[in-house]
Every structure is written in C-alpha cells, then in structure tokens.
C-alpha cells in the first residue's frame, strides 16, 4: 500500500520537504511508518518522543493500522504558550 505523508514546521525543515509518498507493507501501522522515515532521515529520530500523528486529519496512535491512500501527518508539538 501507499500512503501520503505530510511534514510540518520543525519536521518539514529537518527533511526539507513538506510531503512525500511511501510504499509500506500491508498491515503496517503508524509506528512502522515513523521508523521507516527515521531510517531515511536520522534527523527525525530525536523527535520520536514528542511527535504526534494524524491519519486523515484525526489524531492517531502509533499502533493504528494504515490503509492504502491514507494521509498521514507528522505533528510536532503545537504552538503551546500560556
């Protein structure tokens, strides 16, 4: 299956791209995609503890299964502030 990946903010700058397409094994989950991307872009690895994910514009956990055509967004910590 193929998924569409969106990078934002600090992650976009680290990979120097705002989007990409990735071929994954059937049954792959969000965490598998993240691990794949980290192997390609070791600069992502330090964000492992803080990155969140959205699948088709809904927050998703790392063990959520992916399906062909999914839009997966890598979401660094949002703006925050008090």
């Amino acid at each position: 299956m193929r998924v569409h990946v969106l990078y934002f903010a600090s992650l976009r700058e680290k990979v120097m791209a705002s989007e990409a397409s990735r071929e994954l094994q059937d049954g792959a989950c969000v965490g598998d995609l993240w691990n794949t991307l980290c192997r390609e872009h070791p600069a992502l690895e330090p964000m492992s503890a803080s990155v969140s994910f959205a699948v088709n514009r809904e927050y998703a956990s790392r063990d959520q299964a992916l399906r062909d055509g999914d839009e997966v967004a890598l979401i660094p910590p949002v703006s925050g502030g008090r």
Partner: protein
Amino acid sequence: MFEIHREPIDVAKVVAAVAHPAAGAVTTFLGTTRDNNEGRQVTLLEYEAYPEMAIAEMRRIGDTARQRWPIQEIAIAHRVGIVPIGEASVVIAVSSAHRAAAFEACRFAIDRLKEVVPIWKKEHFDGGEVWIGSQVGDVFPGGETEPRK
C-alpha cells in the same frame, strides 16, 4: 466562523460573527505577539498550520464548548505567516445570555486550541529562530512523553 488566513485578523468581524439577539455577554481572547520570551528579544512570530485539520479541530472545540456551556455562538480565527509584535495571531469570541458561560468557554477554547490544534509557532529573536516546542529534548507542553490523542 472557524477560519485560518494570512491577513491581519479583524476583531470586529470575529465579534460580529457571534452576535445574537439573546446574548447579553460576549467575551473575546486575542493572542498577540510579545516582544520577549524567556529572556530573548523577540522580533516576530511566524505561524504554520495544517489548515484542513486545524479547522476541523477548531470546529470540534466549538462543539465541545457548546456541549459544556450554555453559549449562543463561538468563533475562532487564526492567522498564519508572519505576525509582527503587538498583532494578533488568534482571536476567539463567545456569546452567551449571561457572562459566566462566555468567560469559561472562551478560556476553555484557547487552552484547548494551544493543546490540540495543529498550528506551529516559530519564534524569531535577536540571534536566531526556534520552533516553539520542538527544541531538542523537548517533550509535550504538559510534560508527557506520549503522543496526545
């Protein structure tokens, strides 16, 4: 009204969006660019959004606010791109019959927005720039190290 755009936010327009003949109270919150942060002289802030999801999350905040408080209307406008010192990056307005609900729902909306809406802030300061929240070693704003749902 839930919107994201690059132009300066017109506060009067956001307030007008929550006008209601049965409303006796309207509260608003404006998040503005401060000239300093953690001892740094800030020169400007730059916002980036995942617009489709951000609008959906803002709408969800509005739905939750309506479920929790007897409010009439709620509107959220967020600016992206460069926001100079003193200008607003976000404006929230809430109307209700009596003021307690409008105050509480407005406070809830901005607190929640800062936690869940996919909009990021890059601080430009004298000598550098940084994506707030993404400094190396950072964890989530609340201190969790697990992704938020």
